[in-house]
């Protein structure tokens, strides 16, 4: 196989959720002179984009997103020794977390993984994150975007507290805020002053990309 064929084969193995083939083709692609950057851009990012489209067409569900994301992570692990300390260019930076009181992190993890595949640098604060931790991360990391997730109706009120805390710290106009999660709706996002609402991971990532390209 030529280098381009191998890059496509890696992409397709992500789409087909084939761990073994993805590893095999990644190693072969590196042998034929493909750079880690090429594999990340042409195989992982494109593969995840196709997986996202299949998700939107209800052909794939969250479990397939998880598997595809895990394959992407495994490929990245293979690439690490080949990066020679060279950073891969990122299109933007996102600080993300599940809000205080909520320990459900699967939705947030999927979004984080898809953002990474879409070439964002992601600072993942984890689950049960208090407003002050979001504020601290915005001060230190200077992200373009803050993403918040909540599964529970009892915890989604915390999203408002984070936005208020960002305002108090004088940081609200420095970042775009996007929220999502099972309990959250577009109306709720508007009512608390968030800039965006992702009904699912794919839509959330698309909104983040739009914000960055319009900058």
């Amino acid at each position, binding site marked *: 196989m030529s280098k381009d064929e191998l890059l496509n084969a890696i992409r397709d193995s992500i789409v087909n959720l084939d761990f073994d083939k993805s590893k095999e083709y990644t190693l072969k692609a590196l042998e034929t002179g493909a750079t880690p950057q090429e594999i990340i851009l042409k195989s992982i990012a494109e593969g995840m984009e196709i997986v996202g489209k299949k998700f939107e067409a209800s052909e794939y569900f969250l*479990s397939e997103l998880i598997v595809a994301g895990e394959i992407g992570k495994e490929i990245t692990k293979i690439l690490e020794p080949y990066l020679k300390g060279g950073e891969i260019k990122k299109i933007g930076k996102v600080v993300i977390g599940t809000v205080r009181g909520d320990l459900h992190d*699967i939705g947030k993890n999927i979004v984080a993984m898809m953002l990474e595949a879409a070439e964002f640098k992601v600072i993942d604060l984890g689950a049960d994150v208090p407003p002050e931790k979001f504020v601290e991360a915005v001060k230190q990391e200077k992200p373009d975007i803050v993403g918040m997730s909540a599964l529970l109706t009892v915890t989604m009120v915390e999203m408002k507290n984070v936005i208020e805390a960002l305002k108090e710290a004088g940081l609200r106009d420095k970042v775009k805020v996007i929220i999502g999660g099972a309990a959250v709706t577009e109306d709720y996002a508007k009512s608390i002053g968030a800039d965006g609402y992702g009904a699912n991971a794919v839509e959330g990532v698309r909104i983040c990309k739009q914000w960055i390209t319009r900058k």
Partner: protein
Amino acid sequence: MQIILREHFKNFERFPVVPILGYPALPALKITTQECLHNFEKHFKVAKYVFQEYEIDSLLTLLDITVEAEMLGAQVNYTTYDAPQIKKHVEEPKHMETEKMKAYIKTVKKLKEFSKNLPVGAYITGPFTAAGQTIGIEKLVKLYYMEPESAKTILEEVTQTVKDYAREIEDAGADYIIVADPTSSLLSLEHFRRFSKPYLKDVIKELEKEAILHICGKSKHLLQDVPETGVVGISIDQNIPLYEASKVLREDFLIFGNYSPANLERDEPNIIRENVKIMLNPVKGMTNIVASTGCDIPAKTPPENIKAFVDTVKNIKRK
């Protein structure tokens, strides 16, 4: 005498009403979640209060999808009044008895003594959800692709724990079992058939009493396979209109649903009354519908909202 749910609910002139309700009683009785779930007298008091205060059509234990995961070694976090959540997953599940499971079993026994001829429903957790709660969903799904035998072993171990617990709940006197399996809604039909359905079947075939499957989330694509698990009904959320679900399922298959708990907490009683009518009007005449909520009602939900929901259902004639 064994209660057959379908027969029991068939003769109601109005829609039966069995919301997923428990936690809002905790602030009213000033009992914390942790106290309630570890002390059967308190759990019984809460369940009895819910039944008497809101006059619903079944006695129910509180929904807690951490019971089996805790029995397998996961750590649980308790807030004051809301449902517990998993704090820490475990690498290698190992079955053990917990104070909470013992309290659940005793609660069911006490509820049955109290209930006389009314049905007592008790929750257990579906194997896929319980396995996800125990080791983490991402890890479980990844394992299934990379080391399928290890994933199967874990799912089988979890299934055994769920079965053992379910049998004890049945022996304690539960008239029907509600298998809470919300995480299955993350699965495509293909994955549901691999990760969830075989294990659900395995649990349900062990039961002598009837079972209802509760899957909240976007689960319309799974409905066609649900009867094959052996359950006699499904509990769905607001993502699937009741009428839509009824078109996929046979007419004697019970459908519980599907008022949004978030809206029940947030909206004014007059809005709730209108929305309950909107929910039930399309399914008038169907004797397999039981009015419920799409998921657990949050603890902070105002009592007048819950009453508005129950009272409105009770005033709607089935035909």
